[in-house]
């Protein structure tokens, strides 16, 4: 697969190479910009925070820093599942603040060229807000949904966080 990517790149030398971290969520595969990912950790003890939106799982202690945790499945309105050995928290840099996202599994870092990103079709993976989908990557054997997590929370939701 790596080879095919290189070929693609050779075709279009203007394209920049993007590195993505891919993760799984309810059968589908997603990708986020590797530069936004700070670290990937196993599930620690999460302290519940009352009176927050249902997808805010709580906060964790990340080496002395308190980091809020979002459950991706709940956020995207997918069926909830038990955490297992594969479950991971991806700690991301969101506009300078750390935030953790619970995902089913983190698979790999892949490289793609910008030209491979296609605009997302009208309806994708039922229920996921269109806002944060930056596009899809359609490769021979896989379909990857590219997320822009900074657009994950609408303005209203951000207000909800801070204005409740």
């Amino acid at each position, binding site marked *: 697969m790596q080879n095919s990517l290189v070929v693609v790149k050779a075709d279009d030398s203007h394209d920049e190479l993007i590195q993505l971290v891919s993760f799984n969520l309810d059968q589908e595969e997603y990708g986020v910009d590797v530069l936004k990912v700070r670290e990937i950790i196993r599930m620690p003890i999460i302290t519940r*925070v009352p009176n927050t939106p249902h997808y805010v799982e709580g*906060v964790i202690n990340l080496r002395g820093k308190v980091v809020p945790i979002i459950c991706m499945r709940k956020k995207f309105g997918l069926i909830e599942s038990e955490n297992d050995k594969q479950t991971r928290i991806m700690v991301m840099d969101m506009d300078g603040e750390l935030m953790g996202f619970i995902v089913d599994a983190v698979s790999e870092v892949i490289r793609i060229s910008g030209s491979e990103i296609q605009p997302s079709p009208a309806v994708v993976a039922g229920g996921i807000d269109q806002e944060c989908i930056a596009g899809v990557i359609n490769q021979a054997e896989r379909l990857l949904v590219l997320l822009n997590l900074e657009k994950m929370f609408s303005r209203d939701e951000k207000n909800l966080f801070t204005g409740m």
Partner: protein
Amino acid sequence: MPPIDCEDQELLDGFLAETTELLEKLDDDLITLEKSSDDTDLMNRIFRSIHTIKGASSFLGFDLLVKVAHKTEDVLNRLRKGELVVNPEIMDVILEATDLVKLLVGDIKAGDIQERETEGTINKLLPFLLDTAGASQVAAAALQPPAPTPPTAIETPTVTNTPEATSDSAPAPSTAPVPAPKPVSEAAPKKVAPPPKPAEGKGGDDLSDNTTVRVDVKRLDDLMNQVGELVLERNRMIQINQDLQQNDANRADFNEEFGKLTKRMSFVTSELQMQVLKMRMIPVEKVFKKFPRIVRSMSRDLGKEVDLQIVGEETELDRSVVDEIGDPLIHLIRNAMDHGLETPDERLAAGKSRGGTLVLAAVHEGNQIIISIKDDGRGIDTERVGRKAIEKGLITEDQFTAMSQREVFDLLFLPGFSTKEKATDLSGRGVGMDVVKTNIKKLNGLIEIKSAKGLGSEFILRLPLTLAIIQSLLVEVEGEIYSIPLSSVLETIRVDQRQFHQIGGQEVLKLRDIVLPLIRLQKVFNVQQRGESDNFCYVVVVGAAEKRMGLVVTRLVGQQEVAIKSLGNYLANIPGIAGSTILGDGRVALIIDPVAMSEVCE
């Protein structure tokens, strides 16, 4: 001035630190001097300060700065020798000159040295040097204020704003008084100098430096000792661990050794914590000392006579708090001067002394520091405040009639509220009190207003001593641990739930002679019930401002000193939660905010 190269950077930093410190003190000293002009020690100190600034800046080649400082020094020298007598006019000019010095130092600090108009201020200084000045100086000074010579293109070809030109074009201090080659052409014709204006507003504030701190060597030595002990204890810990792994020690020995070690460690860390906390503590004087200057210039602007009394400026509090209270205090002082105190005529008419009194006081009270600003002015006119609020559509007529005095005072803090018809330089835009409220809230502080019409007002700020570490009571609510700041806990009681009463749907508890409203944390925080409930539970009685309430919890865990961690921007404003902390086992516990809690339940 060419960019400063690395070698000089250290020198420059030293110069800036020293100058900033001197200037901060200078303002205060000058105001004091105006009141007690025969204090020769003070006079000499002021003279030395400005002399030091002049010397250092000439060494580093800041010619513009030297020029201003030099002239100021000359005037001060004459004051010192008694050739001149301190009066408000001289003081105004000297203060203006120090402002200019600040501005120039600010430029240097920002690394952005620009050609400033200094002649205006220097010209104002010159007349005070006239009497016995040399013939040439007299001639120059006499000639100069009315008709400053226009810039001659030949003498100063490329002066304006070319950094390199500064040193060349600026006249050397020794020959300074004759400003024949005017460096800045556009500024020359006007005698009223533009630079002091920005200086008054910004220069002072910009200069206060929060990046470096001076620590008593003794405190530093103590700290080093503590760290030394900590290192010893660590070594001991490694040793114990090794012994255990190599099975040299049996379990009982290990337990005993480890127990001892834990005690010593906790002793050393708490000592260390105290030391560091002490180092962070600075006297509130750091903020207070800029106020005499502000009050002086304001009272002259407003034509009011004000006697500012400062009490308790040696009270120490945490740097983080000190940094934050400056702005709110300035706003409160401005308000007191502008709205509170009357003009001398009005005061006499009201049967008061001509001059108003403004008392700025700081005092420790338990874990808090209390800062109050008290004036003996006209007090807050609740009627007028109410009218204005109705006019602005902030409240309705009916609401106003139903309001208590306290609620009316709260209107003052609404953004955009002002009783002034027109915004002036000083006040009236309705921003000030909003700033006060926001900053104090950020510090977890409380504001209290006392006011009597015709007698004066008092604004009381209650602030925590430090923001970083607090004593807290850990409680358990159905398996979840929460932390309550101990400063707001009044008592804890174990009660049978059957003793609770219901008043209009609100659970209450009869506690001696008061009826205590109860808040079930389990309900407020939506905690899931686990296991069967016990009839007995604990009630933590907390006080927020003058309110009392009881928080119902499952179990008390204990008292612990905790470091406050923010929840980050996304979760910053959860009702009833002030922040979070990390417990001994690495878990996060949320800190309850009793003040907000009472609001949530209303």
